[in-house]
């Protein structure tokens, strides 16, 4: 088994039915409430990929200082959409702060973080992988890429 970095396929369908709101303004609902997104860590032996549809505790890391379900993601900047030509539109979003787990011991190797929507049935958004890690009485920090059209964590672009 292995984890594979990908936007989750179910997320693509959810977008077309307004299943996720990354903004305080919601054009599809009557209440403008931003959804709460969370980040959970998974073992290197898990099988997280585009087929992942929702958060699950199966194969999630466990250890001192780690709470099942992960941490709440800071949603500091609303999604942005720009267009440099008649066809080249791109929408993008990146969490507003790093994901930080302090004072943890995670003895079993992990290499994946799942971003999911805890406001909507824990539906999966995306799977991100990195080199396998363990943490011993320490801190694990996951810093986000720059929130730009080419590097944002989530990017939807026309072709």
């Amino acid at each position, binding site marked *: 088994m292995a984890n594979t970095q990908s*936007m989750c396929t179910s997320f693509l369908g959810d977008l077309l039915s307004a299943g996720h709101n990354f903004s305080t303004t919601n054009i599809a609902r009557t209440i403008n409430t931003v959804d709460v997104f969370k980040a959970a860590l998974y073992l290197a032996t898990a099988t997280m990929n585009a087929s992942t549809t929702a958060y699950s505790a199966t194969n999630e890391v466990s250890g001192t200082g780690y709470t099942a379900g992960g941490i709440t993601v800071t949603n500091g900047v609303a999604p942005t959409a720009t267009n440099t030509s008649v066809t080249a539109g*791109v929408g993008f979003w990146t969490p507003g702060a790093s994901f930080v787990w302090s004072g943890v011991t995670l003895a079993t190797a992990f290499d994946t973080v799942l971003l999911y929507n805890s406001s909507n049935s824990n539906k999966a958004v995306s799977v*991100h992988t990195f080199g396998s890690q*363990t*943490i011993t*009485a*320490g801190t694990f*920090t996951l810093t986000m890429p720059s929130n730009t059209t*080419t590097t944002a964590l989530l990017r939807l672009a026309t072709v």
Partner: protein
Amino acid sequence: MLITTTKGEMDDSLLEKREGSVDNENEFTTWVEYWLGSELVHRSAHVTLKKLPALLAEIAQLA
């Protein structure tokens, strides 16, 4: 400097410090370890994600 370890707070002068990093197209990662003899008593890591391939969207051409 005091380091949080599996044995509580310890002065770093008592420990061996090991560091490393990985830089590739997906991530830039650094880690620091403190060893007490042959025992790992602290390990922290910092991963900076670079980017995820974008979802490319297209629409069907109307005939």
